[in-house]
């Protein structure tokens, strides 16, 4: 049986309302303040060292993002840590919060489909993340211009924008996961804890588990260099199940044009390679294409899961 009327009806209204909520909520202001402080701190520290080496590096504005200065980690490392938190904070009570306030059945009694509610909330989260990231990156560039006195080149801007997109996709994974849990669990506290647990699992424990698992497998395997290569690839496969690995590989290749491969490279593959040359953006993009696609696909899968769960749910207030 086909239902009539567009599922997009009311999407705009929900998007605007949710974004207004996000941008004015105390929760988001706190997190944005935190992100801002760390960003300024790391960039300031990074420019401190870079000032001495201006002219030696063709990608100054990428170096700002990646260079770490003890005891501060790099800007990118901080983002990899904070963006999931921001994303989770944006969505962990998206649906069950409406249940708690008993507003969901009133909203769904308006001439809209449920699709619009879920998609509107998701897009509002993505846009909020996007605005935050874009503002942050512009701030970094501005700070760089002030401190270093060099204007960023087009290729740096290009790589920066792709980096923002990748970070958005990575944040989207946690946003979609938090949203899925907000549909599945009736208590916002439960969904928040569950999402943070999954995040911690991938951030801390997955590498350990993957290492253990790999050791068990590789102990029983023996053979020539082909087995070695297969094992190395298997090890990579294991760690790439985690979205954190996908993201860090993406960032590594995007922000370091001299990175040519994200895995084991055979000596034969290096034949004829000119050492020390930098990859153009298109080639770097080609390198991280699988990782980037993987991140986006994870977002879509998680959102689809949330969608199905939400459609089947009884909306009794």
């Amino acid at each position, binding site marked *: 049986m086909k239902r009539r009327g567009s599922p997009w009806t009311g999407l705009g209204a929900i998007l605007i309302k949710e974004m207004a909520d996000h941008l004015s909520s105390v929760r988001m202001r706190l997190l944005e303040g935190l992100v801002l402080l760390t960003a300024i701190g790391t960039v300031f520290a990074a420019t401190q060292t870079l000032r001495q080496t201006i002219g030696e590096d063709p990608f100054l504005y990428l170096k700002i993002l990646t260079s770490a200065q003890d005891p501060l980690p790099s800007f990118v490392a901080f983002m990899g840590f904070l963006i999931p938190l921001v994303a989770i904070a944006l969505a962990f009570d998206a649906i069950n919060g409406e249940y708690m306030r*008993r507003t969901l059945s009133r909203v769904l*009694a308006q001439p809209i489909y449920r699709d619009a509610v879920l998609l509107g909330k998701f897009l509002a989260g993505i846009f909020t993340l996007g605005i935050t990231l874009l503002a942050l990156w512009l701030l970094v560039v501005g700070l760089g211009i002030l401190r270093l006195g060099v204007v960023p080149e087009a290729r740096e801007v290009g790589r920066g924008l792709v980096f923002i997109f990748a970070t958005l996709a990575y944040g989207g994974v946690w946003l979609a996961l938090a949203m899925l849990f907000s549909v599945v669990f009736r208590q916002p506290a439960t969904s928040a804890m569950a999402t943070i647990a999954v995040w911690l699992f991938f951030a801390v424990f997955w590498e350990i588990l993957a290492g253990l698992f790999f050791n068990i497998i590789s102990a029983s395997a023996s053979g020539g260099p082909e087995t070695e290569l297969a094992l190395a690839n298997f090890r990579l496969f294991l760690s790439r199940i985690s979205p954190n690995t996908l993201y860090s590989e993406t960032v590594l290749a995007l922000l370091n044009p001299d990175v040519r491969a994200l895995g084991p490279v055979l000596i034969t593959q290096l034949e004829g390679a000119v050492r020390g040359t930098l990859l153009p953006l298109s080639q770097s993009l080609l390198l991280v294409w699988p990782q980037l696609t993987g991140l986006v696909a994870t977002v879509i899968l998680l959102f689809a899961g949330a969608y199905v769960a939400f459609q089947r749910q009884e909306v009794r207030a």
Partner: protein
Amino acid sequence: MSAIIETQGLTKHYGPIAAVESLNLRLQAGEVFGLLGPNGSGKTTTILMLLGLTEPTSGWARVLGEDPLRNPLEVKRRVGYMPDSVGFYDDLSARENLRYTARLNGLSRSESESRMDEVLSGAGLSEVADRPVATYSRGMRQRLGLADVLLKRPQVAILDEPTMGLDPEAAAEFLAMIRGLRSQGIAVLLSSHLLQQVQAVCDRVGLFHKGRLVLEGSVEALSDRVLGGAYRIVVEASGDGLERTLGAVPGVVRVAQERPGTYRVEAQQDCRAEVARRVVAGGAQLLGLSLERATLDDVYARYFQEARHEA
């Protein structure tokens, strides 16, 4: 007159439990219909199916001629729904909450502002419209809920437990607002477990029991049918052997002593004059005599008493 809401064999099962069982309902234009019954008897499930928020297991429903499953947007555009214990965004003001509803209904900005003023003053909330809803009392929230329903100028208003949790004064105020809807030509379907409160506003009522609509009709018709057109006379008197005296009055079916000095007499006709005469003639002191109108509570209690006896 055409039916505004019509259901035929509407059934909803949750696993082995039947929430609503083959419901046939017809609601005429401009009518106030009360869906009455204890908690968990299937009232809210029925409402959700009428709005297309839940799929029926079998049977069908038509609301304003539309199928709520196939064309829920059109149904929801013309039907206002107030859920039980309606919720609002607490940190927003009443006006902002209504503005959100107006946007979801696709109203233009100028149109929604003028309608908002109209429904807010109708609900008596104009003064406090810019205060956050968190500061509202239960009664104010409920009135805001009705304003929210009226914002889209519905042809039908479905109100789920509209008087629940209200003090008697606020409830009476709210019921007066519902009566106001009828004079505007809006059909109202309301559900409640507080029979006595709603019998005053409903043209017709349907009594729910375990998912089935067991009785339907106007309050008078129902009490005639279930109570057998009985008159209940409450006699306050002091003296001896009153029970026998009262029982001997022609037409009296049953006499029961409620507490010392108060008797409840059930009779086939209004025999108050005869009762008074005999009580006084018997040497007792007559202190009070009144005819009690049958309430829905009596109908309900009696009906289920009998149903239980039969079972």
